[in-house]
Protein backbone atom coordinates (compact mmCIF):
# COMPACT_ATOMS: atom_id res chain seq x y z
CA UNK A 1 0.00 0.00 0.00
CA UNK A 2 1.30 3.46 -0.81
CA UNK A 3 1.32 6.54 1.40
CA UNK A 4 -2.02 8.06 0.28
CA UNK A 5 -3.74 4.72 0.93
CA UNK A 6 -2.20 4.29 4.37
CA UNK A 7 -2.93 7.86 5.40
CA UNK A 8 -6.54 7.50 4.28
CA UNK A 9 -6.77 4.19 6.15
CA UNK A 10 -5.44 5.84 9.31
CA UNK A 11 -7.79 8.78 8.81
CA UNK A 12 -10.79 6.46 8.51
CA UNK A 13 -9.78 4.69 11.71
CA UNK A 14 -9.45 8.09 13.37
CA UNK A 15 -12.98 9.00 12.24
CA UNK A 16 -14.23 5.70 13.66
CA UNK A 17 -12.41 6.46 16.93
CA UNK A 18 -14.00 9.90 17.07
CA UNK A 19 -17.45 8.43 16.43
CA UNK A 20 -16.96 5.93 19.27
CA UNK A 21 -15.71 8.62 21.64
CA UNK A 22 -18.61 10.96 20.81
CA UNK A 23 -21.07 8.07 21.16
CA UNK A 24 -19.63 7.12 24.54
CA UNK A 25 -19.75 10.67 25.82
CA UNK A 26 -23.33 11.08 24.57
CA UNK A 27 -24.37 7.84 26.25
CA UNK A 28 -22.78 8.99 29.47
CA UNK A 29 -24.39 12.42 29.40
CA UNK A 30 -27.85 11.32 28.21
CA UNK A 31 -27.65 8.38 30.62
CA UNK A 32 -27.71 10.89 33.46
CA UNK A 33 -31.20 11.92 32.34
CA UNK A 34 -32.66 8.89 30.66
CA UNK A 35 -32.95 5.44 32.27
CA UNK A 36 -33.11 3.86 28.80
CA UNK A 37 -29.83 5.46 27.76
CA UNK A 38 -28.32 4.48 31.11
CA UNK A 39 -29.37 0.90 30.57
CA UNK A 40 -27.94 0.90 27.05
CA UNK A 41 -24.69 2.40 28.34
CA UNK A 42 -24.46 -0.24 31.03
CA UNK A 43 -25.00 -3.01 28.51
CA UNK A 44 -22.33 -1.61 26.20
CA UNK A 45 -19.92 -1.14 29.09
CA UNK A 46 -20.60 -4.69 30.29
CA UNK A 47 -19.90 -6.00 26.81
CA UNK A 48 -16.77 -3.95 26.15
CA UNK A 49 -15.44 -3.55 29.70
CA UNK A 50 -13.71 -6.92 30.12
CA UNK A 51 -11.95 -6.46 26.78
CA UNK A 52 -11.24 -2.75 27.15
CA UNK A 53 -7.64 -3.00 28.31
CA UNK A 54 -6.80 -5.21 25.36
CA UNK A 55 -8.69 -2.91 23.00
CA UNK A 56 -6.87 0.12 24.40
CA UNK A 57 -3.56 -1.67 23.85
CA UNK A 58 -4.70 -2.38 20.28
CA UNK A 59 -5.52 1.29 19.72
CA UNK A 60 -2.09 2.29 21.04
CA UNK A 61 -0.48 -0.35 18.80
CA UNK A 62 -2.28 0.93 15.70
CA UNK A 63 -1.31 4.53 16.55
CA UNK A 64 2.29 3.44 17.08
CA UNK A 65 2.41 1.46 13.86
CA UNK A 66 0.84 4.38 11.97
CA UNK A 67 3.30 6.84 13.41
CA UNK A 68 6.24 4.60 12.54
CA UNK A 69 4.92 4.14 9.01
CA UNK A 70 4.59 7.90 8.53
CA UNK A 71 8.14 8.58 9.70
CA UNK A 72 10.04 5.53 8.48
CA UNK A 73 8.24 4.67 5.25
CA UNK A 74 6.53 7.89 4.13
CA UNK A 75 9.49 9.94 5.47
CA UNK A 76 7.31 12.54 7.19
CA UNK A 77 9.82 13.82 9.72
CA UNK A 78 8.39 13.91 13.24
CA UNK A 79 8.67 17.35 14.82
CA UNK A 80 9.33 18.15 18.48
CA UNK A 81 5.63 17.99 19.45
CA UNK A 82 5.25 14.73 17.51
CA UNK A 83 8.01 13.24 19.64
CA UNK A 84 6.24 14.25 22.85
CA UNK A 85 3.09 12.50 21.63
CA UNK A 86 5.11 9.45 20.67
CA UNK A 87 6.66 9.40 24.13
CA UNK A 88 3.14 9.14 25.54
CA UNK A 89 1.71 6.67 23.02
CA UNK A 90 4.48 4.13 22.52
CA UNK A 91 4.79 2.93 26.13
CA UNK A 92 1.02 2.45 26.29
CA UNK A 93 1.31 -0.45 23.86
CA UNK A 94 3.45 -2.43 26.28
CA UNK A 95 1.91 -1.18 29.50
CA UNK A 96 -1.69 -1.76 28.41
CA UNK A 97 -0.85 -4.96 26.55
CA UNK A 98 0.87 -6.50 29.55
CA UNK A 99 -1.89 -5.28 31.87
CA UNK A 100 -4.54 -6.81 29.61
CA UNK A 101 -2.79 -10.16 29.65
CA UNK A 102 -2.24 -10.03 33.40
CA UNK A 103 -5.75 -8.60 33.97
CA UNK A 104 -4.11 -5.87 36.01
CA UNK A 105 -6.87 -3.28 36.05
CA UNK A 106 -5.21 -1.07 38.60
CA UNK A 107 -3.06 0.29 35.76
CA UNK A 108 -6.03 2.35 34.56
CA UNK A 109 -5.38 5.67 36.36
CA UNK A 110 -1.70 5.64 35.47
CA UNK A 111 -2.32 4.83 31.81
CA UNK A 112 -5.09 7.45 31.74
CA UNK A 113 -2.69 10.07 33.07
CA UNK A 114 -0.21 9.29 30.28
CA UNK A 115 -2.98 9.39 27.67
CA UNK A 116 -4.22 12.71 29.06
CA UNK A 117 -0.77 14.26 28.75
CA UNK A 118 -0.42 12.91 25.20
CA UNK A 119 -3.86 14.22 24.30
CA UNK A 120 -3.04 17.64 25.72
CA UNK A 121 0.10 17.82 23.56
CA UNK A 122 -1.99 16.78 20.54
CA UNK A 123 -4.42 19.63 21.27
CA UNK A 124 -1.56 22.13 21.39
CA UNK A 125 -0.06 20.70 18.20
CA UNK A 126 -3.41 21.09 16.42
CA UNK A 127 -3.54 24.72 17.57
CA UNK A 128 0.00 25.32 16.27
CA UNK A 129 -1.01 23.86 12.91
CA UNK A 130 -4.02 26.19 12.69
CA UNK A 131 -2.34 29.22 14.24
CA UNK A 132 1.38 28.89 13.41
CA UNK A 133 2.17 32.24 15.01
CA UNK A 134 1.52 30.62 18.40
CA UNK A 135 5.04 29.21 18.23
CA UNK A 136 6.96 31.52 15.93
CA UNK A 137 6.41 33.83 12.97
CA UNK A 138 8.67 31.89 10.62
CA UNK A 139 9.28 28.30 9.55
CA UNK A 140 12.33 26.34 10.55
CA UNK A 141 13.60 24.97 7.20
CA UNK A 142 14.10 21.55 8.70
CA UNK A 143 10.96 20.60 10.49
CA UNK A 144 8.57 23.12 12.01
CA UNK A 145 5.72 21.85 14.18
CA UNK A 146 3.30 23.92 12.13
CA UNK A 147 3.83 21.93 8.93
CA UNK A 148 0.78 19.94 7.86
CA UNK A 149 1.98 16.70 6.30
CA UNK A 150 -1.43 15.10 5.97
CA UNK A 151 -4.88 16.64 5.88
CA UNK A 152 -7.85 14.38 5.20
CA UNK A 153 -11.51 15.40 5.06
CA UNK A 154 -10.44 19.00 5.59
CA UNK A 155 -9.52 18.62 9.25
CA UNK A 156 -7.76 15.33 9.98
CA UNK A 157 -4.06 16.04 10.41
CA UNK A 158 -1.53 13.77 12.11
CA UNK A 159 -1.96 15.27 15.61
CA UNK A 160 -5.74 15.15 15.14
CA UNK A 161 -5.43 11.43 14.48
CA UNK A 162 -3.20 11.10 17.56
CA UNK A 163 -5.76 12.97 19.66
CA UNK A 164 -8.45 10.59 18.41
CA UNK A 165 -6.29 7.67 19.56
CA UNK A 166 -5.63 9.15 22.98
CA UNK A 167 -9.33 9.98 23.43
CA UNK A 168 -10.41 6.45 22.50
CA UNK A 169 -7.85 4.98 24.90
CA UNK A 170 -9.25 7.20 27.66
CA UNK A 171 -12.81 6.06 26.93
CA UNK A 172 -11.73 2.42 26.94
CA UNK A 173 -9.89 2.90 30.22
CA UNK A 174 -13.03 4.48 31.65
CA UNK A 175 -15.15 1.44 30.84
CA UNK A 176 -12.49 -1.19 31.53
CA UNK A 177 -13.46 -3.60 34.27
CA UNK A 178 -12.61 -7.14 35.22
CA UNK A 179 -14.80 -9.91 33.85
CA UNK A 180 -17.93 -10.28 35.88
CA UNK A 181 -17.96 -13.56 37.72
CA UNK A 182 -20.79 -15.88 36.87
CA UNK A 183 -21.84 -18.83 38.82
CA UNK A 184 -22.53 -22.18 37.30
CA UNK A 185 -25.32 -24.05 39.01
CA UNK A 186 -24.51 -27.57 40.06
CA UNK A 187 -26.88 -30.13 41.14
CA UNK A 188 -26.99 -30.76 44.82
CA UNK A 189 -25.49 -34.02 45.85
Amino acid at each position, binding site marked *: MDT*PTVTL*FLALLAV*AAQAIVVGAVLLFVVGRLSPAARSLGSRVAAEVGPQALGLAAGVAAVCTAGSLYLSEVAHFLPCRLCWYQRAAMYPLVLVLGASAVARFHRIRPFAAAVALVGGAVSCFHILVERYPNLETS*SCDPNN*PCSIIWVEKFGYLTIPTMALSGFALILVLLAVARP*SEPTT*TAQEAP
Partner: protein
Amino acid sequence: MTGPVKPKERGPIVWYAVLALVVIAGVVAVVATRGSDDAKPVAGQTAAVTVAKDGADALPTFESAQDDPAVGTTIPTVSGTTLSGGKLTIGPDDGKAKVIIFAAHWCPHCQREIPLLAEHLKDSPMPDDVELLTVSTGVEASRGNYPPSAWLEDVGWTAPTLADSSKSLAASTFGLSSYPYFVVVDAEGKVVFRITGEISVDQFDQLVAAAQSGKSPI
Protein backbone atom coordinates in the same frame (compact mmCIF):
# COMPACT_ATOMS: atom_id res chain seq x y z
CA MET B 1 -25.25 -25.04 45.93
CA THR B 2 -23.14 -23.02 43.49
CA GLY B 3 -20.16 -24.38 41.61
CA PRO B 4 -16.83 -22.92 40.41
CA VAL B 5 -16.75 -19.31 39.23
CA LYS B 6 -16.18 -18.72 35.52
CA PRO B 7 -15.65 -15.42 33.74
CA LYS B 8 -18.21 -14.50 31.12
CA GLU B 9 -16.92 -14.97 27.58
CA ARG B 10 -17.92 -11.79 25.76
CA GLY B 11 -14.65 -11.11 24.02
CA PRO B 12 -15.01 -12.52 20.53
CA ILE B 13 -18.00 -10.36 19.54
CA VAL B 14 -16.17 -7.16 20.44
CA TRP B 15 -13.00 -8.25 18.70
CA TYR B 16 -14.90 -9.36 15.59
CA ALA B 17 -16.55 -5.93 15.46
CA VAL B 18 -13.16 -4.21 15.71
CA LEU B 19 -11.72 -6.49 13.05
CA ALA B 20 -14.66 -5.76 10.74
CA LEU B 21 -14.15 -2.02 11.25
CA VAL B 22 -10.46 -2.25 10.39
CA VAL B 23 -11.12 -4.37 7.30
CA ILE B 24 -13.82 -1.99 6.06
CA ALA B 25 -11.49 1.00 6.57
CA GLY B 26 -8.72 -0.82 4.70
CA VAL B 27 -10.95 -1.72 1.76
CA VAL B 28 -12.35 1.82 1.51
CA ALA B 29 -8.83 3.29 1.62
CA VAL B 30 -7.55 0.98 -1.10
CA VAL B 31 -10.54 1.56 -3.38
CA ALA B 32 -10.64 5.33 -2.83
CA THR B 33 -6.95 5.86 -3.58
CA ARG B 34 -6.69 3.55 -6.58
CA GLY B 35 -4.83 5.44 -9.29
CA SER B 36 -3.96 8.27 -6.93
CA ASP B 37 -0.87 10.23 -7.94
CA ASP B 38 -0.42 12.19 -4.72
CA ALA B 39 3.07 13.35 -3.84
CA LYS B 40 4.62 12.47 -7.18
CA PRO B 41 7.30 14.99 -8.15
CA VAL B 42 6.23 17.50 -10.79
CA ALA B 43 8.81 18.59 -13.36
CA GLY B 44 10.32 22.04 -13.07
CA GLN B 45 9.66 22.64 -9.37
CA THR B 46 13.36 22.41 -8.61
CA ALA B 47 16.14 23.15 -11.07
CA ALA B 48 19.89 23.51 -11.19
CA VAL B 49 21.14 26.77 -9.71
CA THR B 50 24.55 28.20 -10.49
CA VAL B 51 26.46 30.50 -8.19
CA ALA B 52 28.86 32.77 -10.11
CA LYS B 53 32.40 32.04 -8.95
CA ASP B 54 33.58 35.53 -9.83
CA GLY B 55 30.67 37.10 -7.95
CA ALA B 56 30.44 38.17 -4.32
CA ASP B 57 30.69 35.65 -1.50
CA ALA B 58 27.66 33.96 -0.02
CA LEU B 59 25.85 36.02 2.59
CA PRO B 60 26.25 34.98 6.22
CA THR B 61 23.35 33.00 7.64
CA PHE B 62 20.71 35.41 8.87
CA GLU B 63 20.37 35.64 12.63
CA SER B 64 18.94 39.05 13.42
CA ALA B 65 18.06 42.26 11.63
CA GLN B 66 19.90 44.14 14.37
CA ASP B 67 23.62 44.46 13.57
CA ASP B 68 23.24 42.19 10.57
CA PRO B 69 26.79 41.65 9.19
CA ALA B 70 25.39 41.21 5.67
CA VAL B 71 24.20 44.82 5.46
CA GLY B 72 26.40 46.78 3.08
CA THR B 73 27.87 43.69 1.43
CA THR B 74 27.30 42.87 -2.21
CA ILE B 75 24.87 40.06 -2.95
CA PRO B 76 26.13 36.94 -4.70
CA THR B 77 24.99 36.11 -8.22
CA VAL B 78 22.79 33.07 -8.70
CA SER B 79 21.35 31.89 -12.00
CA GLY B 80 18.77 29.29 -12.80
CA THR B 81 15.33 28.61 -14.19
CA THR B 82 12.02 30.16 -13.27
CA LEU B 83 8.98 28.08 -12.42
CA SER B 84 7.58 29.04 -15.81
CA GLY B 85 10.69 27.73 -17.56
CA GLY B 86 12.54 30.98 -18.35
CA LYS B 87 16.04 31.96 -17.30
CA LEU B 88 16.63 34.21 -14.32
CA THR B 89 19.75 35.68 -12.76
CA ILE B 90 19.65 37.37 -9.39
CA GLY B 91 22.74 39.45 -8.85
CA PRO B 92 24.14 42.91 -8.14
CA ASP B 93 25.02 43.98 -11.67
CA ASP B 94 21.67 44.88 -13.21
CA GLY B 95 21.56 48.29 -11.52
CA LYS B 96 18.12 47.68 -10.05
CA ALA B 97 17.06 47.82 -6.44
CA LYS B 98 15.23 44.67 -5.49
CA VAL B 99 13.29 42.85 -2.83
CA ILE B 100 13.92 39.12 -2.93
CA ILE B 101 11.46 36.80 -1.16
CA PHE B 102 12.38 33.21 -0.36
CA ALA B 103 9.31 31.07 0.26
CA ALA B 104 8.56 27.38 0.78
CA HIS B 105 5.28 25.94 -0.50
CA TRP B 106 4.71 23.86 2.65
CA CYS B 107 5.47 26.61 5.16
CA PRO B 108 2.24 27.89 6.73
CA HIS B 109 3.74 31.34 7.23
CA CYS B 110 4.58 31.55 3.52
CA GLN B 111 1.09 30.29 2.73
CA ARG B 112 -0.26 33.33 4.56
CA GLU B 113 2.34 35.85 3.44
CA ILE B 114 2.38 35.30 -0.30
CA PRO B 115 -1.40 35.65 -0.87
CA LEU B 116 -1.41 38.70 1.41
CA LEU B 117 1.30 40.37 -0.67
CA ALA B 118 -0.27 39.24 -3.96
CA GLU B 119 -3.50 40.96 -2.98
CA HIS B 120 -1.63 44.06 -1.82
CA LEU B 121 0.35 44.28 -5.05
CA LYS B 122 -2.85 44.36 -7.08
CA ASP B 123 -3.69 47.71 -5.49
CA SER B 124 -0.15 48.95 -4.90
CA PRO B 125 2.13 47.66 -7.65
CA MET B 126 5.88 47.74 -7.23
CA PRO B 127 7.51 51.04 -8.26
CA ASP B 128 9.39 50.95 -11.54
CA ASP B 129 12.78 51.28 -9.89
CA VAL B 130 12.37 48.31 -7.56
CA GLU B 131 12.19 44.74 -8.76
CA LEU B 132 10.34 42.05 -6.85
CA LEU B 133 11.86 38.59 -7.21
CA THR B 134 10.92 35.31 -5.55
CA VAL B 135 12.81 32.11 -4.92
CA SER B 136 10.74 28.98 -4.45
CA THR B 137 12.90 26.94 -2.14
CA GLY B 138 12.76 24.03 0.30
CA VAL B 139 10.68 22.14 -2.24
CA GLU B 140 9.60 18.64 -1.27
CA ALA B 141 6.95 16.68 -3.11
CA SER B 142 5.92 14.83 0.04
CA ARG B 143 5.08 18.02 1.89
CA GLY B 144 1.79 19.86 1.64
CA ASN B 145 0.66 22.49 -0.88
CA TYR B 146 2.73 20.92 -3.63
CA PRO B 147 3.63 21.85 -6.35
CA PRO B 148 4.71 25.44 -5.67
CA SER B 149 4.00 26.54 -9.25
CA ALA B 150 0.32 25.66 -8.85
CA TRP B 151 0.16 27.35 -5.46
CA LEU B 152 1.72 30.61 -6.70
CA GLU B 153 -0.55 30.63 -9.73
CA ASP B 154 -3.60 30.02 -7.54
CA VAL B 155 -2.82 32.99 -5.32
CA GLY B 156 -2.08 35.26 -8.28
CA TRP B 157 1.63 35.65 -7.65
CA THR B 158 3.15 37.22 -10.76
CA ALA B 159 6.71 38.10 -9.71
CA PRO B 160 9.47 36.15 -11.48
CA THR B 161 10.17 33.10 -9.36
CA LEU B 162 13.42 31.20 -9.43
CA ALA B 163 13.13 27.45 -8.85
CA ASP B 164 15.77 26.66 -6.26
CA SER B 165 17.79 23.46 -6.49
CA SER B 166 16.73 20.35 -4.61
CA LYS B 167 19.38 21.21 -2.02
CA SER B 168 18.21 24.85 -1.78
CA LEU B 169 21.50 26.26 -3.05
CA ALA B 170 20.12 29.74 -3.80
CA ALA B 171 18.60 29.98 -0.32
CA SER B 172 21.76 28.92 1.45
CA THR B 173 23.86 31.26 -0.72
CA PHE B 174 21.68 34.16 0.43
CA GLY B 175 21.94 33.10 4.09
CA LEU B 176 18.40 31.83 4.66
CA SER B 177 17.70 30.59 8.17
CA SER B 178 13.91 30.34 8.07
CA TYR B 179 10.91 31.06 5.83
CA PRO B 180 9.65 33.43 4.59
CA TYR B 181 12.88 35.35 4.13
CA PHE B 182 13.27 38.83 2.68
CA VAL B 183 16.49 40.32 1.32
CA VAL B 184 16.36 44.02 0.44
CA VAL B 185 18.99 45.13 -2.05
CA ASP B 186 19.79 48.65 -3.27
CA ALA B 187 20.52 49.68 -6.87
CA GLU B 188 24.23 49.06 -6.33
CA GLY B 189 23.60 45.46 -5.41
CA LYS B 190 24.33 45.85 -1.72
CA VAL B 191 22.23 44.39 1.09
CA VAL B 192 20.17 47.06 2.81
CA PHE B 193 18.16 44.87 5.14
CA ARG B 194 17.21 41.26 5.79
CA ILE B 195 14.30 39.92 7.76
CA THR B 196 12.57 36.60 8.25
CA GLY B 197 9.04 35.66 9.24
CA GLU B 198 5.62 36.99 8.37
CA ILE B 199 5.37 40.72 7.79
CA SER B 200 2.44 43.05 7.25
CA VAL B 201 1.79 44.91 4.00
CA ASP B 202 2.93 48.13 5.70
CA GLN B 203 6.22 46.47 6.61
CA PHE B 204 6.52 45.24 3.04
CA ASP B 205 6.05 48.79 1.78
CA GLN B 206 8.84 49.86 4.14
CA LEU B 207 11.09 47.20 2.60
CA VAL B 208 10.33 48.55 -0.87
CA ALA B 209 11.09 52.09 0.30
CA ALA B 210 14.34 50.83 1.87
CA ALA B 211 15.38 49.27 -1.44
CA GLN B 212 14.69 52.58 -3.19
CA SER B 213 16.52 54.72 -0.66
CA GLY B 214 19.27 52.30 0.26
CA LYS B 215 18.55 53.00 3.92
CA SER B 216 17.61 50.35 6.44
CA PRO B 217 14.03 50.66 7.77
CA ILE B 218 15.28 50.20 11.36
